[in-house]
């Protein structure tokens, strides 16, 4: 009853702060639209090759160009000066320059993945052109296709992005929005008046967690609707399981924000320590790259962080339409984090 009233009042006050509410809902939607549109492209992405035009084209040059045209490449012919400028700007992954006897190829070390793949294609095209020049039969090449591993049902980038975005959004809501708001309210003395009432801390905190939980669930519905109607991404799994995973994740990251906020006196300190937690968690959770190259102990330590099991479970349901059987351990990790953080938050919470 008290909890319910507290929850309603949180919503009421929240709804009056139009700007904050607008951004809470608009930001993840804009992110999804932005990223989704950039990567929507549709067809197989083309590999760009900068072609430095020689003063006089020889037969070998013509042959290579013809061979390259058979591969999924985009040829960017330009003068040596233009090519040099583009290279210096760091935009070129691979540049091919005909010389008197053969060719010279440069690969951008900053764009390794794209560069290596393109370089390989150029090598193959070179072999093809050599055979043609010598009148030999065309070598048979292994056909290559690009696919996204593990997510066979929805392979476009927006579909891969959506669950990640949901997860990131949760984590930043919890660590940044919720925690920061609490620290700054405490700093401004907005909780002191509550401290002299008999309101139990846990009701106050749980009221906030429930409020944020519903805010996040509404955000999720928005993102799912946009995914569905703009990008045609559908949830492959059960909505019940999806809700379950989302609720668990939200509770976890909100509680984490509350717990963390009890360690900072000022908003400035809070900003620092929340970043200190956010970025390692983001990078170590395998969202952006795998940790195969990392030391063993680090890989094992990372298993206990909640972001990656949460995202794995979310992707399993959303992208693959699987059940949660294989993710029981991961979800327990998330639940344990949620419970520990909430307990810690209640224990350490100070009104002033």
């Amino acid at each position, binding site marked *: 009853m008290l909890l319910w009233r507290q929850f309603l009042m949180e919503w009421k006050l929240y709804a009056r702060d139009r700007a904050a509410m607008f951004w809470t809902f608009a930001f993840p939607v804009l992110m999804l639209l932005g990223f989704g549109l950039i990567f929507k492209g549709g067809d197989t992405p083309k590999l760009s090759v900068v072609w430095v035009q020689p003063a006089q084209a020889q037969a070998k040059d013509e042959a290579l160009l013809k061979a390259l045209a058979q591969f999924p490449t985009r040829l960017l012919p330009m003068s040596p000066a233009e090519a040099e400028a583009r290279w210096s700007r760091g935009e070129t992954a691979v540049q091919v320059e005909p010389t008197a006897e053969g060719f010279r190829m440069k690969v951008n070390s900053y764009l390794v993945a794209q560069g290596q793949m393109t370089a390989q294609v150029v090598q193959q095209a070179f072999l093809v052109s050599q055979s043609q020049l010598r009148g030999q039969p065309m070598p048979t090449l292994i056909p290559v296709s690009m696919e996204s591993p593990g997510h066979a049902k929805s392979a476009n980038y927006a579909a891969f992005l959506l669950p990640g975005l949901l997860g990131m959004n949760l984590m930043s809501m919890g660590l940044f929005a919720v925690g920061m708001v609490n620290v700054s309210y405490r700093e401004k003395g907005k909780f002191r008046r509550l401290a002299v009432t*008999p309101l139990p801390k846990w009701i106050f905190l749980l009221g906030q967690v429930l409020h944020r939980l519903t805010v996040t669930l509404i955000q999720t519905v928005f993102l799912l609707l946009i995914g569905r109607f703009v990008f045609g991404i559908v949830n492959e799994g059960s909505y019940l399981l999806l809700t379950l995973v989302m609720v668990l994740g939200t509770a976890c990251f909100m509680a984490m924000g509350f717990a963390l906020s009890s360690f900072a006196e000022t908003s400035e300190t809070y900003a620092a320590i929340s970043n200190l937690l956010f970025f390692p968690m983001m990078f170590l959770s395998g969202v952006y790259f795998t940790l195969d190259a990392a030391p063993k102990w680090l890989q094992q330590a990372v298993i206990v962080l909640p972001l990656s099991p949460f995202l794995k479970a979310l992707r399993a349901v959303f992208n693959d339409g699987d059940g949660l059987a294989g993710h029981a351990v991961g979800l327990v990790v998330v639940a344990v984090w949620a419970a520990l953080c909430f307990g810690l938050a209640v224990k350490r919470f100070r009104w002033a």
Partner: protein
Amino acid sequence: MLEPALRVRGLKKQYPGVLAVAGVDLDVARGEVFGLLGPNGAGKTTTLEIIEGLTEADAGAIEVLGLDWKRHGTEIRSRIGVQLQSTSLFNKITPREALTLYGGYYPKSRTADELLELVQLKDKADAYHITLSGGQMQRLALAMALVNDPELVFLDEPTTGLDPQARRSLWEVVRRIKAEGRTVILTTHYMDEAEALCDRLAIMDHGRVLTTGTPAELIAQLAIPSVVELSFEGAAPAVDGFDARIGAAVEVRGDLWEIPTPDPKSLLPRLLEAAEAAAIPYQQVHVRRATLEDVFLHKTGRSLRD
């Protein structure tokens, strides 16, 4: 017989570089209006907030309504009402909502309408907190201190920032709270307020209680119940041996000479004659009863507002 409203012994609080409360003892009986009087930084707020359970003391024993904070925290909170020196609420909550919300935290509560009526805030009942004036916020804070029908009410500078008329009407509210049988503990800088409202007072300075008693007792403690004042145009001149000539201490305060005396009747002729002889350019002579201000001056050697 009911327990006393408040019993405090040996209260101490050290902040970095300042001993904010330096061993305070207080006793407040049920039904009293008790005042803590003292200049800025005297330790009034710190003392109150320790008693209210907001701040932890370094040492000392506290009984609120006969209860101990450690064992009966929730019960104490349910039975006391608190107006903080500054109350910061959520910007977009209205007085009516705040009263209803906070009332909901207590086992029994008074209605928002009744309280808004009491503090004369009905016309702002549905305005956002952030749009209220300082005095209106102050009145809302008072109403919030009464929301749980408390037995003991703490008011930290309840009239600071109020216009003279609002101050008077707040005094009326405090008298009504007392008439309802509640105990009130308030802090103030204002002498007239302390005299008008308080049954008993403690005068505080530098974290200590200098003296305690009814306003009349405190003034009577001064062996000098009257003060003769000579007023000057502009700043008063230096005393320059004049005190020796009349055989009484002369204190220079702004545009006044103040001469405390137990017997103004015999001092006055002597004083006027000596002033005439020394060609003291005074404008007016005024005889008044000693006030709490004089008690404070006497106890601390400085004025309350310095």
